[in-house]
């Protein structure tokens, strides 16, 4: 267990999780999504009845399933970081694989949702609500797909029996990115599925 220096076991008083650079990405993306949230709010304020009616067409159940899935992957990812710090590669690998599986489930559910909506005649051309629904959840789904690639990279690192400081930093960076994917969805879900 000498692989993990004592400092890594319990996080010290002040320490940036992951690389500084990843926080530019995370906070930057959060700001851009904040603009998207405000666009949704403006759409709602513009015509509440239409927003509520369009919202009825969404499948709330699938939205809830995806929220539970993403929140759970965030947990498995946080635990994976712990496992990596405690130098337990097998546990870490299992947790990262579980996170990736969750990401795949999320994407699959999203595809089912999109297909259902299009078959029912709701497309990005229907009105503002569906335009933003497709664009913003599509942008988020793009984050999920990039996240899968990031998690794949993390998986390659945590497989190793011994992790250095830089390796752990990369794992933390990947985890921070993934938590951001979760966090953005939580607001999108609230605004798109449960507002009206």
């Amino acid at each position, binding site marked *: 267990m000498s692989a993990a220096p004592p400092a890594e076991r319990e996080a010290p008083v002040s320490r940036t999780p992951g*690389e500084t650079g990843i926080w*530019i*990405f995370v906070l*930057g993306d959060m700001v851009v999504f904040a*603009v998207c949230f405000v*666009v949704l709010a403006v759409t709602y304020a513009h015509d509440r009845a239409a927003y509520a009616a369009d919202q009825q067409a969404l499948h709330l159940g699938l939205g809830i399933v995806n929220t539970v899935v993403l929140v759970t992957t965030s947990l498995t990812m946080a635990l994976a970081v712990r496992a990596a710090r405690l130098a337990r590669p097998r546990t870490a690998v299992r947790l990262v694989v579980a996170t990736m599986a969750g990401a795949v489930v999320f994407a699959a559910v999203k595809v089912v949702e999109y297909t259902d909506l299009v078959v029912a005649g709701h497309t990005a051309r229907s009105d503002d609500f569906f335009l*933003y629904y497709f664009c913003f959840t599509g*942008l988020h789904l793009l984050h999920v797909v990039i996240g899968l690639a990031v998690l794949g990279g993390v998986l390659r690192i945590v497989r190793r029996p011994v992790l250095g400081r830089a390796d752990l930093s990369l794992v933390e960076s990947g985890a921070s990115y993934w938590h951001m994917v979760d966090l953005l969805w939580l607001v999108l879900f609230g605004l798109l599925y449960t507002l009206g």
Partner: protein
Amino acid sequence: MTTVRAARERDVAAVTPRGLTEHRVQTWCVWSAPLFVALLFGALLVAGWVPPPSPSQTPGQVAAMYAEHTDLKRLAFVLLFLGGGMSAAFVAAIDHRLEQIPGARALARLQVIGGTLGVFAVVLPAIVFMVAAYRPERNPEITQALHDLAFIPFIGNLVPFLIQAIAIGVAVLMQDPERPVLPRWVGFYNLWTAFLTLPGLLLIFFRTGAFAWNGVLVFWVVATVFGGWFLVMFWVLRDVLRAEAR
């Protein structure tokens, strides 16, 4: 070759005993970035295009817009034209640093290609704007077509910038962490910037809303990110240059 080098050495010696000529040229190149931003956004202000005109304007409205303050608009397009040229110097300043990263030769070249195309991405719309403003009394539909022909690439021609930002991002992240030429966060920052300009590609689908060329996600986010990129990169390169001079 030898003569050139000899001439240069003589030149350096003539100007300053410490050989700061190269440093001075680099400084000018680095300072071209805030100048570019000032010219670009200054031009938009002079043209009265902050916020930008709506893409849903009728041909008559577009023609009326060009007929009003025509000379001011022409001046704005000249400023825009000059601004485009200004960005070339900054491409050279970035290239100077990327060349110093071992193994990043191809990426340095790619940055220059992206940046060079980027000059055209500003200069060509500027020329078409000039053409549109040249005869405002012509058939309004023609003016509208020229206006579209300039505005769509002006906001939407993001591919050169994408090439440039990705090349810088990858080159910075591949640096030896022990001896970085540029700070590592700059790599993440460039990749993030590249990613953010992507919504701009949606503008041809819309004439109203957040994704139209005057929309919040296409104009405001992309303009902020793009303008901000020049200022942040300016600040980074100036710091590197200052550290080098010490």
